[in-house]
């Protein structure tokens, strides 16, 4: 295993700016948020827990022009993203988005390109957020997949592991920035992982979240229950839970004319909003808020396990943190266990 100190990590990131748009977490309020790394910037943090913002926004843009006039051209053409400090829950988000958007016949071209050419430098969690519950959806609070290079914070630097050919090539090409990992530091990583995992587990257990393999079953069992009416009482239909969610992928296509050209935009959409399922002639199969709430949970905890064997929730707790109605996804799941 290898070690890199913070100064050398700064150099590594600086060297990546030529080939990538490098996004780093920076401290914002009590949290972290992603922004572009400028020339010689070193004002980033690796972050002890996931950032405020979901990483999907760098791959699946909130609003993107996807077609112009009748031309077949793919419009976004920029350097691929390099995301620094991505956490395990963010990587789980990519698993779901990959399932949705990567496809031979109808794949989303800009998402696929960003995923193929992009670089992910992930990091272990070193703390537990107030709303975190990743272990309840079978995710460990350290990256185990979908990363190129992972950083495990230790004193004065990071233990480095590689998770892909691209990551191994990158480390190989910049050997001078890395040294052998000291044994005691490798041990410290193991300690941190087991400590953080047990803290998330304790927190999730205190909330009474059903165990992961029961989630699908409890949703099915309570499909017709009044629980959905109760839990949607405080919902204000803002859609924040959707926009902030690393696995929410719904969008709508919107056409307009600008500068005499026809433009088609792909924009994030929210299944909590009344019009989401409305059809021509004004019929709406989900005209009640509780039906939309139920649909959101059904999609994440029943649909995705059914079609991909992956729970469509990363346990990041962003939806709970963002909800102005203080709807806590953990408490909703716990109610279903009764």
């Amino acid at each position, binding site marked *: 295993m290898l070690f890199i100190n913070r100064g050398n990590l700064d150099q590594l990131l600086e060297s990546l700016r030529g080939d990538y748009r490098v996004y780093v977490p920076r401290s914002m309020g009590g949290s972290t948020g992603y922004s572009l790394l400028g020339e010689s910037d070193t004002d980033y943090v690796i972050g002890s827990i996931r950032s405020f913002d979901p990483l999907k926004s760098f791959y699946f843009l909130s609003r993107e022009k996807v*077609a112009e006039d009748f*031309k077949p*051209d793919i419009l976004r053409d920029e350097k691929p993203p390099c995301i620094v400090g991505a956490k395990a829950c963010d990587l789980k988000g990519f698993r779901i988005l990959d399932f949705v958007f990567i496809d031979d*016949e109808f794949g989303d071209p800009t998402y696929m390109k960003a995923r193929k050419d992009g670089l992910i430098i992930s990091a272990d969690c070193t703390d537990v957020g107030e709303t975190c519950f990743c272990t309840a959806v079978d995710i460990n609070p350290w990256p185990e997949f979908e990363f190129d290079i992972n950083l495990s914070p230790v004193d004065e630097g990071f233990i480095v592991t590689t998770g892909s050919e691209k990551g191994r090539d990158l480390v190989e090409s910049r050997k001078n920035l890395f040294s052998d990992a000291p044994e005691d530091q490798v041990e410290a990583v193991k300690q941190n992982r087991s400590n953080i995992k047990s803290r998330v587990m304790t927190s999730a257990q205190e909330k009474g979240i059903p165990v992961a393999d029961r989630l699908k079953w409890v949703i099915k069992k309570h499909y017709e229950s009044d629980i959905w009416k109760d839990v949607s009482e405080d919902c204000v239909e803002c859609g924040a839970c959707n926009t902030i969610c690393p696995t929410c*992928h*719904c969008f709508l296509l919107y056409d307009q004319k600008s500068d005499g050209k026809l433009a088609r935009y792909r924009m994030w959409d929210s299944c909590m909003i009344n019009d989401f*399922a409305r059809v021509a*002639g*004004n019929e709406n199969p989900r005209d009640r808020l509780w039906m939309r709430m139920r649909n959101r949970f059904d999609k994440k905890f029943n649909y995705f396990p059914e079609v991909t064997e992956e729970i469509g929730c990363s346990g990041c707790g962003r939806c709970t943190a963002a909800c102005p109605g203080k709807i806590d996804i953990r408490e909703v799941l716990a109610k279903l266990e009764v």
Partner: protein
Amino acid sequence: MKNPYRSIEAEVLKVTTETPSIKTFLLKPKEELTFKPGQFMEFSVPGVGEAPFTPSSDSQIRETMEITIVKVGKVTDAIHELKPGDTVGLRGPLGKGYPFMKFTGQDVLVIGGGVGLAPVRTLMYGLFHMRKQLSKLVYRGGCRNPEEFLYRSELEEWMKRDDIDMKLTVDHGDDSWNGPIGVVTTIMDDIDVNFERAKAIVCGPPVMMKFATFKLQELGVRDSNIYLSMEKNMSCGFGKCGHCRIGPYYCCSDGPVFTYDMIREYPGIWD
């Protein structure tokens, strides 16, 4: 890489007014664009938006395509303003077509209602092309009143054919109508086929599909042999945008034609 969001340019060649709120548009795509019965297209008015429609013309005609459209909202209002010579967009074909291979050697029942007669027309052309490979062919169509019958003269031509058992009904008659009066399920009792093995295809408004399905079950048609054309809110048309989910399926990419056994357990299918 292919851009799945891009429409192909097409020219409006002809506009036919079918009823005060329904028009048929004959379109000529500027690039090759073919479809199978049961598949649909996203039809766009430049700068206004897209909406999904099933073509109503014969899928073996490759140079042009007809689409019959009811005026019900923003996009269809704009479509109804179109004139010959105007430019529109077509994106598709999308969805899966009817599994014609499975119809070979079988009795086939087609139940169509209201504006559902538009996609049924494409299907009927397809079935007529393979008529010799089918056993019996039965058609039962219904509308609210005779004025709502699309392609009435064409339907009357089909009635004269001796290779189809065809009947039409209306909920409310008028002076021009001397056929049966009642909903479509009231003209299904005299159907004479091998229900145990027959394939039934239903297309129409949700309430009509619901009662036609129950009637077919009563007659002994298997749920796995009842093909329903589902309608949900569809934006992308290829299973990515998330709008049209029915249980584990997307209406657009897994359908829009589903057999009843695939979807019967999911709530809201008739909504």
